[in-house]
């Protein structure tokens, strides 16, 4: 205890000042209630990062201060004022509290009983259910405040606060005393007063008073007054005996958002930027962070695709390209890079989506489809923290279809073939034969459920060990992760191992160095087609009376005999075990940066970043010799492809940031260069046996390689300006030079401008107490997109790139020229305007953010549709066509806090409308989706005036119920041509004659809807109840259409294959009340042609995640684990537990088969999403 602390007056001081507090500053209105709520919001991010999700612990404590907090003491106080309690604690323990009495409600009565308890625990109890947090700073000072330390602008100075030493002055010459108050007159408790140049000083008492006994030579000295969060004040003593000071509140750091090339305060942001917190990213058992943000960011659409390890389809604010994959630009720690699957979501500190042009145009020629900024974790200051996060779960198919069993199949097959005058398969009447030679079971005894064979329970697990720590010079974060997921269909899986180390070092006051590094490897086995058909399709079509395996065949699988069974499905398990087993993708990824930041002055910084992205991918394939009795491979086929990608980026950045009175100016200037090089090599060969799975001793060997390089040089400038935090202005410009375009076309300029008005800062708004903050924003800007090949403008001879076997020798090579270049090729150019507002009501209880935008893309890159007769095999790309997306986005938040039950609810909603404005020619159409197994007609059409890739086909007009109806229809036209075709019979579908010419042909097709949702939404409810925590996360889309190819497989009846039970309801003269047409093999009426018969509502609402966790109290743990484990949280979680949809296929989340363009929303039997149930544990070690 300081010997200078003499006053023992512990009469607290709050009540008399309280009245004066109101209306002194707008900020302080209704202070107590409101601050509490703000506090809840503010602490959420930091707290969660520090203490882990739903840790159930009230307050964060920088670990290096544990010693201060671990002091044990006993108290027995009944109904005492808080300030008295604090004073008593100061007396018993070696601590000093700093606080504003009014803020912590120092007059509040508390009771506390403690018997040899840690200070930490006592403080936990005292401030439980209040917004006040306690944090240790300096050597033994504890700040009691609603605002976390890290949010104070001068937090870096905390460590350099003067150390006050006990002064031993034999004979004090004179005494200085006084009061330290804030500008409301509120006394400041725990403020420090130090004589400049010495360690002599004092700490203000519970009334804000201090007393200093000084030597004579200090009469002309200077006192330094400081308090965390307030501006430090120097006052000359000038021989005075009383020095009273008023400290001005310093700036509290605003919530900061990562924008391109820097950060910006959320309050002064003028662009549309959405942040996703770490909490959201780690909440789901997913392989990549893109999957985790599904439904969390309005305007970002994410559709999961295919088996484990497949990238989901990510679209920001609609679709911006037709011929290119309109992927957003991902910038990871400042490096534009791909390979998101390699990044452990738990390593992500924050993810920002730059949605409008004013935010994104800083990335110029690559930003037209949005930008996603990913920032990985940094080390934390303080004691080393070790965390282990693990989960293990099981996935399963959440839905199967009703398919025919053996007897139904035989009945159906008989009807189908008889109707087309084909013989009934011989097997049907001869099932009492063994399923293979020597088998003990017969076909009659076999009834295989192929869905049962092909769907399995599959494990998923994830483990991550992370270490974080540091001091005021160096900070390090490192982690080691392992993720493994098996698919719900056989022989599909994905594994990832990742290692990360990030560090930064404050070498000098003016110099910071740092690095990030990711090293990851992964392995994937994907589902494979059999005969061009998906695993699902082969599963649905496989004959029920057929055995799963057949040991008499080479390879162990058999399939039907074409003559005897009159069908030739692929055994799906053979595909899995023989085609998938040894077709493996391996990847190695290194992604790292080195950065230097030099502070010339407080307002001018230089930053240099060197980044490198290295990715090596390898695909090995071994396809074995087999013979299933119908198909076979007589010679094993091997191939190996390797691709090496290396990209470097160098960024030089100057940042100027200075305030001139109320004018706050921030300017950045950037010069940047990125080079990328991609090399690939592939080799293949054949082997006469299945013994060796590498390219050794092969026949028919082949090898080839390719090299591709590109460079981008960029100059970027950005100005942000605000006047008094009220009027906001932003402007940026980027000039990009790309090697992908012809000379004269290489350079492009991408400007943007934005304005904002924080209405709530205006004086006339102060009286509207319901509105806490309100900001209006508007922006406009241009971005480009250049995801074309590196050399697309250049025409080229493909030298020696084909073979013709003169004299039956395969060594005669040929050279050809099959594509014109286009020296006029340029960027797709997007202009986007955005208006929005951010509103916070009732002291932050409600938050609303809304945006409306218009996004127009000109110069769409399309392949010029060339006449066939020109003879070029591939068309040059040209900038023709335009497209528009307009949209509305809404994000809502609500927070609830009570004694035991705290929760928050956030909702997102967005709608976007896409329209193609023009294509290469006014009447041009781009058709897609044609597949002979699905009717053989195009399924989507892209045409000006319609949304991209709208479904296009015929409309069903019912079923012909009699031959007379068919005849009547045939009589409609003038030319004696049949209405549909000559084979149309009763029971066939009648299509609508839209042009009324009495016959059905191509001109009777129409647009049948779009795969794009009318709107999509997400709802996230999470919170804590005592030691329990919970999260419910719902995601959905509404109003989208799916072309249900699974229904074509199930009830299309194109040929004899197994089918869904729908076919049992096929039209017959006795069963006329049905929408399933007659069963006839060959589909002579083309009932399966693209029509609204197969268009279904794709809306779904999905409980994406539901989880409940429990955190064990830390005290108990420390005792039990001998102080090793500080935190244990266990949880159970389920992904896709419930899905509400009318869609009748396997899964409504239908992306695009093979990631093809223009076939989104067509379900060709894609790999369905799984339902997962898992158990997890988070451990924190001391």
């Amino acid at each position, binding site marked *: 205890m300081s010997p200078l602390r003499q006053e023992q007056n512990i009469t607290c001081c709050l009540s008399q000042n309280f009245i004066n507090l109101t209306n002194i500053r707008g900020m302080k209105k209704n202070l107590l209630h409101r601050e509490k709520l703000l506090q809840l919001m503010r602490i959420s991010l930091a707290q969660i990062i520090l203490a882990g999700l739903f840790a159930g612990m009230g307050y964060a404590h920088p670990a290096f201060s544990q010693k201060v907090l671990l002091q044990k003491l006993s108290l027995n106080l009944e109904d005492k004022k808080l300030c008295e309690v604090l004073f008593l604690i100061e007396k018993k323990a070696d601590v000093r509290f700093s606080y504003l009495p009014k803020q912590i409600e120092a007059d509040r009565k508390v009771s506390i009983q403690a018997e040899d308890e840690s200070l930490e625990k006592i403080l936990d109890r005292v401030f439980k259910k209040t917004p006040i947090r306690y944090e240790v700073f300096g050597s033994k000072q504890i700040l009691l405040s609603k605002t976390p330390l890290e949010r104070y602008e001068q937090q870096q100075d905390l460590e350099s606060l003067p150390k006050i030493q006990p002064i031993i002055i034999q004979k004090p010459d004179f005494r200085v005393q006084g009061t330290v108050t804030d500008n409301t007159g509120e006394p400041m408790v725990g403020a420090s007063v130090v004589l400049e140049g010495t360690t002599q000083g004092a700490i203000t008492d519970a009334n804000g008073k201090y007393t200093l006994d000084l030597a004579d030579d200090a009469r002309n000295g200077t006192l330094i007054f400081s308090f965390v969060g307030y501006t430090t004040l120097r006052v000359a003593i000038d021989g005075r005996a009383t020095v009273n000071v008023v400290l001005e509140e310093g700036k509290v750091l605003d919530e900061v958002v990562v924008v391109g090339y820097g950060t910006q305060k959320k309050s002064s942001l003028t662009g549309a930027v959405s942040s996703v917190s770490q909490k959201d990213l780690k909440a789901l058992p997913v392989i990549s962070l893109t999957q985790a943000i599904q439904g969390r960011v309005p305007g970002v659409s994410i559709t999961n695709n295919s088996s484990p390890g497949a990238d989901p389809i990510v679209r920001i604010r609609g679709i911006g390209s037709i011929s290119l994959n309109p992927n957003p630009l991902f910038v990871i720690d400042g490096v534009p890079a791909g390979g998101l699957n390699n990044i452990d979501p738990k390593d992500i500190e924050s993810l920002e989506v730059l949605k409008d042009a004013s935010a994104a145009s800083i990335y110029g020629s690559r930003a037209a489809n949005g930008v996603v900024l990913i920032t990985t974790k940094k080390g934390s200051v303080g004691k080393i923290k070790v965390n282990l996060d693990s989960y293990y779960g099981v996935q399963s198919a959440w839905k199967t279809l009703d398919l025919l069993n053996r007897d139904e199949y035989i009945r159906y097959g008989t009807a189908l073939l008889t109707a087309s005058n084909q013989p009934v398969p011989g097997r049907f009447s001869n099932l009492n034969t063994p399923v293979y030679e020597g088998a003990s079971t017969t076909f009659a005894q076999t009834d295989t459920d192929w869905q049962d064979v092909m769907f399995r329970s599959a494990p998923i697990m994830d483990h991550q060990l992370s270490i974080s720590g540091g001091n005021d010079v160096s900070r390090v974060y490192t982690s080691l992760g392992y993720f493994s997921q098996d698919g719900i269909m056989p022989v599909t899986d994905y594994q990832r191992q990742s290692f990360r180390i990030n560090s930064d070092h404050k070498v000098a006051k003016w110099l910071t160095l740092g690095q990030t590094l990711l090293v990851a490897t992964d392995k994937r086995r994907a589902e494979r087609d059999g005969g061009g058909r998906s695993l699902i399709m082969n599963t649905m079509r496989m004959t029920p009376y057929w055995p799963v395996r057949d040991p008499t065949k080479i390879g162990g699988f058999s399939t039907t005999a074409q003559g005897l069974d009159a069908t030739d499905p692929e055994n799906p398990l053979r595909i899995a075990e023989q085609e998938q087993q040894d077709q493996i993708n391996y990847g190695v990824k290194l992604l790292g940066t080195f950065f230097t930041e030099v502070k010339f002055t407080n307002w001018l910084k230089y930053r240099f970043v060197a980044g490198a992205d290295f990715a090596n991918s390898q695909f090995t394939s071994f396809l074995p010799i087999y013979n299933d009795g119908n198909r076979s491979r007589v010679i094993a086929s091997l191939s190996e492809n390797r691709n090496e990608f290396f990209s470097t980026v160098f960024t030089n950045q100057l940042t100027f940031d200075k305030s001139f009175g109320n004018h706050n100016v921030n300017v950045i200037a950037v010069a940047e260069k990125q080079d990328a090089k991609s090399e690939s090599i592939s080799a293949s060969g054949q082997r006469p046996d299945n013994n060796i799975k590498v390219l050794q001793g092969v026949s028919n060997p082949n090898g080839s390689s390719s090299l591709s390089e590109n460079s981008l040089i960029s100059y970027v400038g950005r100005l942000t300006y605000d006047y008094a935090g009220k009027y906001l202005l932003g402007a940026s410009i980027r000039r990009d030079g790309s090697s992908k375009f012809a000379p004269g076309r290489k350079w492009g300029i991408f400007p943007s401008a934005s304005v904002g008005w924080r209405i709530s800062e205006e004086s006339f708004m102060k009286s509207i107490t319901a509105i806490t903050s309100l900001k209006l924003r508007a922006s406009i800007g241009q971005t480009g997109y250049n995801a074309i090949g590196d050399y697309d403008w250049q025409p080229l001879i493909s030298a020696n790139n084909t073979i013709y076997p003169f004299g039956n020798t395969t060594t005669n090579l040929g050279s050809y020229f099959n594509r014109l270049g286009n020296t006029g090729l340029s960027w797709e150019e997007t202009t986007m305007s955005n208006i929005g507002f951010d509103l916070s009501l009732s002291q932050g209880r409600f938050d609303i953010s809304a945006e409306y935008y218009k996004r127009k893309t000109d110069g769409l890159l399309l392949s010029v549709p060339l006449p066939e007769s020109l003879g070029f095999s591939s068309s040059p790309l040209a900038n023709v066509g335009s497209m528009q997306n307009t949209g509305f986005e809404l994000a809502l938040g609500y927070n609830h806090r009570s004694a035991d039950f705290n929760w928050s609810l956030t909702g997102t909603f967005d709608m976007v409308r896409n329209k193609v404005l023009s294509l290469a020619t006014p009447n041009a159409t781009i058709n897609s989706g044609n597949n002979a197994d699905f009717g053989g007609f195009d399924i989507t059409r892209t045409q000006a005036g319609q949304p991209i890739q709208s479904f296009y086909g015929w409309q069903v007009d019912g079923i012909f119920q009699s031959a007379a109806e068919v005849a009547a229809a045939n009589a409609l036209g003038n030319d004696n041509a049949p209405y549909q075709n000559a084979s149309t019979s009763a029971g066939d579908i009648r299509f609508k004659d839209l042009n009324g010419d009495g016959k059905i042909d191509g001109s009777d097709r129409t647009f049948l809807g779009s795969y794009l949702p009318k709107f999509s939404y997400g709802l996230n409810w999470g919170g804590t109840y005592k030691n329990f925590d919970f999260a419910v996360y719902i995601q959905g889309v509404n109003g989208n259409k799916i072309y249900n190819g699974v229904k074509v497989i199930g009830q299309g009846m194109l040929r*004899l294959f197994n089918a869904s039970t729908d076919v049992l309801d096929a039209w017959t003269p006795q069963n006329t009340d049905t929408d399933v047409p007659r069963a006839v093999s060959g589909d002579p009426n083309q009932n399966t042609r693209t029509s609204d018969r197969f268009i279904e509502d794709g809306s779904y609402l999905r409980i994406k995640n539901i989880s409940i966790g429990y955190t064990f109290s830390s005290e108990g743990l420390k005792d039990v684990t001998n102080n090793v484990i500080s935190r244990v949280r266990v949880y159970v979680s389920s992904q896709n537990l419930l899905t509400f949809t009318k869609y009748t296929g396997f899964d409504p989340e239908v992306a695009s088969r093979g990631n093809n363009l223009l076939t989104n929303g067509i379900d060709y039997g894609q790999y369905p999403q799984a339902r997962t149930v898992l158990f997890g544990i988070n451990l924190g070690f001391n």
Partner: protein
Amino acid sequence: MKKIAFLTSIMILGLTLSCNDEVLNKVNPNGVTLDTYFNNDAELTAGVNAVYALVQHNGLVSREWFFTHDLRGDEMATGGGQLEAPRAQLLNGVNDAGNSVSNAVFTGWFRVIHRANVVIEAGAAAKPTISEAVRTRVVGEAKFLRAWAYYELGTLWGGVPIYTEYAKSVDGSKARSSQQDVYNVVISDLKAAETALPATYTAANLGRATKHAAQMLLARTYLQLGDYNNAKTELQKIVSSGLFKLVDNYLDLTNEEGEFNAESIFEVVYAPSGGAYNWGGDGDGTAVQEETVRTQEYSAVGWRNLIPSNKILNDYERASKGDAKDDPRYDMSYWKPGDKFNNGNSTMTDDRVQGNASVVDGKTVKISWRKYSVLYKIDNGFYTSGINMRIMRYADVLLMLAECENEAGNSAAAIALMNQVRARASVQMPPYPTSNYPCNNKDEILRALQHERFVELAAEQVRNFDILRWRKHKKLKSEPISFFVANKHELLPLPQTEIDNNPNIEQKDQNPGY
């Protein structure tokens, strides 16, 4: 000082690394540019090799080409539901301008023309770096291939756009010309090729177009035009060259072992590649995948997309119909139940044969094509093969010459030529006239000749051309195609994409009836 030095070096480093605009000039390293290529014998030869390679690709002779001809003749019937829709449409005459099969052929031939034009232009003028012999031959080959393309296009689609130079920009497309103009290009190209090309090649170059291939194609062109005199002249050149004769074994005409035999005039070459087939694009790439799917598509065991029509099966001379003997070519052209295949190790049973049955001689039986079927030596229906497609063979020369002689009124010469074909060692059919095929007049000889061509050249992509020219020149007693609608089915529709994308062709320029 230290600080300033450090800063300066960092900034200099940073700016040096980022500010060299030269890096934006990158040239594709994976190929060469047009102006630096075709400068020596090897490069010019590679240019024409690529034209052959295109003729061979999936869109042409490996697949769609034979389908288009076979589906439009009367030799074929559907194997069943497995025949894909666009093929079934052609077979039933309900194909439209969107038909993917005929459109692929249209597109394929124009790509052949483009590649040939590149070679013809590159080899147009003498260059010191190119030997004159190679230049002459390569340009001759390119002209032969271009002529073949225009012959097919002109015959199947009528007057198509004519390009004798490749398009230098995307707007270089042309309007339709007349069918006669197309044939004029064919004739002039073939005359040039006839002069430029050698009569024979070394073993390593077998498969290149010869002088006689040019003559035979010229004869075929004249026959399409009804010009029997000029056709006869060309055909006689082939006969008098003495290079060709009928081979003994009829099976050798469509199996792998009989490739490049004495009867062969022009073949599209396929080489065994371990089952590798290039389904996509233009068949390019350096992987060895030089097989054809002909055997797989029609395979008795397997897809069996097309089977012989009842009409052709019943056209063979047969003792039961009163002919002197069963025509041995029937057994050598079709697989029937009980046939041994796979070198005699497997037996054809109905269990293994999917799809429709035929009615032959009043009996219902599953019959499948044997020509080009590799089942004779393996037991695998899903197998591509290296069997060369015989585009031109000597028996056809003799039969065409017979037709010319008949038209000229030289009955004896015509009958003798036909009997030469019937006398093949493995066939040994009694000479015309026979009881069912009397040859007393021009008409009767023509009828015998049409029968003889039908069975001798069955499934060899000749029948469609024969029907087209006989129909046009009124040599048919009755229309052989059941769905035939006059003023429509003579020609195939231009692909809709050609009409949509060619600014010089409008919808009204489409062939009649589509």
